[in-house]
């Protein structure tokens, strides 16, 4: 076992080995790139959250409290685009994923280190373009860019925003290629597929979607820009085009993108639940393959966004059935996490609290997804606040909880410092309650029929809207707290040992923070993932273990 992170470990760690700004900006070290990404997506998360805060503040009053209709439309468009493409899609893969994939594989870096750096620069350029478009002129189409509104009927800055989203797609593809090839090519000796941590299975599935769905978004955006500039009629019914074709293409990417956002979260939760129960994940192979099947079936369900859009009855029936099917693997995961807890030695540290929050909120999100996969109820609930609440339960309740779980869990590994545990638990609890108070009323609003994206609304909806806004203020506190104590811990946090949680992954075998080359001695894997018996009672010599396939 590596020693506690004494000053020498710190000195030779990736963080301090060369401290110049130039060495950070030109680094090909996946750990440093992960931190560059973390800084950028945190900035975008703050920006998107400010948009959300303004939206919730505005909706306190039925006539709209602070914004004009136009500003309100721009605000929710900004919130959607920034949160989806500049925070949720990259979030876990580019930060935790970038940091952990080589460590979990026992490799010194990703397969293509320079490509990794390029992807960060692409992402930053993408972000700059999007922010430029959204704040110099603005855009009022919603993040879905439906035609012909976005092509012929908007004064907004379609081009820079679309170009930005297009570039961010390249960054995603680069990351996806890098992860898949790394997992295929760079596994440490003895690390067979069924010994991989479930985080890697989840990231592998995510990367497949990155590589295969993102290009469809790219071409859709190219078509959209082409149409917007030249008015050629690809999606314009006035010139013979079909606006539904845009929706098909858009959702062919954007539905799998939902799984891009949630699968890595599931990977994190699998790691955290296993560690804090000190017990192997129940049904390892089922959890692993459920990630792959979610990615696969996820490509076939885009039509459930279009049950009232004017597609054929047969399409709707088929897509409804497939949508039910895709929720089965998610249900399998939830049951397996509960099975993992059974008989474990459960510790309720902050990462575990966040992970439990994920399981609960994700279950609510998944179950309300059934309301939307069912055809007749979807007709009533779609395009209302019910949908808003549903996907925020998945994206914020699920994904953001998982991201925070992962951040707390690997924070000692990333920085070599412990975060303050009490504050961590407080923030986890605040997130859970604040989140529910914000979004649960929106289910009721949706059933009552309040449409989404309304700047003003009938007075009968006010009580629930005020409740929701009140919850948002608690949620904001739950975001601000970690930001403060994480920064505090960088300077004052207790020094972390190499393996503070008694976890099994390869990343815990090296020092905290790891040296630039990740492992002083290249690791050899002799056990299954989550083999706590081997951790607690280490065998005298590795060759005593029989080879395992």
């Amino acid at each position, binding site marked *: 076992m590596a020693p506690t992170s004494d000053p020498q470990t710190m000195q030779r760690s990736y963080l301090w080995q060369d401290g110049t700004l130039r060495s950070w900006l030109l680094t090909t070290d996946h750990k440093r790139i992960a931190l560059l990404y973390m800084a950028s997506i945190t900035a975008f998360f703050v920006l998107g959250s400010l948009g959300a805060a303004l939206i919730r503040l505005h909706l306190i009053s039925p006539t709209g409290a602070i914004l004009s209709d136009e500003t309100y439309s721009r605000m929710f468009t900004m919130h959607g685009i920034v949160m989806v493409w500049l925070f949720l899609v990259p979030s876990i893969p580019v930060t935790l994923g970038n940091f952990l994939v080589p460590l979990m594989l026992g490799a010194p870096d990703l397969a293509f280190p320079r490509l990794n750096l390029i992807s960060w620069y692409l992402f930053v350029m993408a972000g700059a373009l999007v922010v430029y478009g959204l704040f110099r002129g603005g855009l009022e189409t919603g993040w879905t860019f439906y035609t012909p509104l976005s092509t012929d*009927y908007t004064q907004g800055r379609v081009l820079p925003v679309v170009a930005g989203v297009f570039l961010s797609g390249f960054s995603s593809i680069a990351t996806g290629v890098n992860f898949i090839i790394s997992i295929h090519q760079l596994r440490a000796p003895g690390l067979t597929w069924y010994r991989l941590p479930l985080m890697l299975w989840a990231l592998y599935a995510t990367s497949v979607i990155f590589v295969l769905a993102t290009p469809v978004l790219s071409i859709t955006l190219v078509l959209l820009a082409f149409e917007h500039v030249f008015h050629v009629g690809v999606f314009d019914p006035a010139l013979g085009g079909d606006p539904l074709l845009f929706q098909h293409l858009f959702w062919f990417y954007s539905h799998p993108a939902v799984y891009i956002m949630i699968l890595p979260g599931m990977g994190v939760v699998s790691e955290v639940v296993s560690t804090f129960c000190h017990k192997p994940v129940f049904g390892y192979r089922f959890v692993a393959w459920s990630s792959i099947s979610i990615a696969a079936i996820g490509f076939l369900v885009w039509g459930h966004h279009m049950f009232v859009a004017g597609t054929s009855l047969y399409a709707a029936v088929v897509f409804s059935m497939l949508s039910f099917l895709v929720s089965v693997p998610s249900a399998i995961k939830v049951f397996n996490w509960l099975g993992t*807890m059974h008989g474990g030695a459960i510790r309720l540290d902050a990462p575990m609290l966040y992970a439990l929050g994920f399981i609960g909120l994700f279950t609510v999100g998944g179950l309300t997804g059934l309301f939307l996969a069912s055809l007749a109820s979807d007709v009533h609930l779609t*395009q209302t606040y019910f949908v808003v609440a549903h996907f925020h339960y998945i994206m914020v309740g699920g994904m953001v909880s998982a991201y925070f779980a992962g951040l707390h869990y690997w924070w000692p590994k990333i920085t070599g410092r412990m975060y303050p545990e009490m504050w961590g638990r407080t923030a986890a609890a605040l997130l859970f309650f604040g989140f529910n108070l914000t979004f649960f009323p929106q289910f009721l609003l949706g059933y009552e029929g309040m449409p989404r994206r309304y700047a003003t609304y009938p007075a009968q909806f006010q009580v629930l809207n005020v409740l929701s806004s009140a919850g948002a203020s608690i949620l904001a506190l739950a975001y601000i707290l970690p930001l403060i104590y994480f920064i505090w811990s960088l300077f004052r946090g207790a020094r972390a040992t190499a393996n503070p949680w008694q976890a099994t992954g390869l990343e815990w075998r090296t020092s905290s923070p790891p040296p630039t080359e990740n492992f002083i001695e290249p690791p050899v894997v002799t056990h299954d993932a989550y083999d706590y018996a081997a951790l607690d009672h280490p065998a005298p010599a590795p060759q005593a273990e029989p080879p395992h396939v």
Partner: protein
Amino acid sequence: MTWLPAASVHAGQVDILLGGLLLISLAVLGLVFGLMLLNIIRFRVGSRVPVSAETVAHKSWRFEIAWTSVTLAVFFALFLWAARLYVVGFQPPSGAIQIYVTGKQWMWKVQYPGGQREINALHVPLGRPVQLLLTSEDVIHDFSIPALRIKHDVLPRRYQSLWFTATQVGAFRFYCTQFCGIGHSRMTGTLIVLTPTDYANWLGQTPASGSLATRGEALFIHNGCSGCHVSQPYSPGADDTSRAPSMVGLYGSQTMGPDGQRVKVDNAFLHDAILHTATVSGQAAAYATQMPSYRGVLAEEDLAALIAYIQTLSPSRLSGVGMSASPERKGN
């Protein structure tokens, strides 16, 4: 805050479906949170209860198969239940009152068969099926009536159908629920369900510039349609259909589509045929002259009137059938 009324039989059925979904969800949530709490209490580090070895070593695949198949079965049942209710929306009953609803940024224009028009309000009689024929003049809108639990996107230049039979007198709000620009949240209106007598009175009191079909007939002549298309069965030259197809008996009949397949002449077909003749190209060769496109000449309201007029020329076939969205009607 008032609970959302259910103003049709369909709305009640959707509520029952939602209730079923809610019960299943609550049961699953109870299970998940219950197991989570039980596990935490029983297996927390430091808890006194000893853990037996067999608790820890389960046979995992039996559990996996059990919960996977139970989940699948429940999901499939839900799917069937919800799909059956959805199919109904595609089967408007014959004899429904056809009302044309046109969305534009940011208002709803409503036209009645009798020629009455109004904006952001829709009057319907109690207990009679009503079919809304929805179209848009600009971007995609969506016509949503929560009290009836129905909605449908409203696409430019094609007709979508939404039908219902209101069973409760009163005023209910309808909304545009597809984001359509900065005035989106102002694009709402009121559905007013009247008793049949009140409805008749309302129709009588509302000024109408001739019925929709009458206005259509005027447009038919005014725009020169009658120059080529025959519109009366026994007029002089009624047998001369060399220039263009006769309008008599056309609505509801079958004709040749662009690629030689047979298509049915319905509202959507006529709408497309008048605006861009491409869809009827399969037949165009049979006639001496080529019909010009009326895109930009006729507004959506004019088209609605023209189609209403053409429908009257096929009295035997006039019914609520034949929407672009409707597949073959089945007997169930």
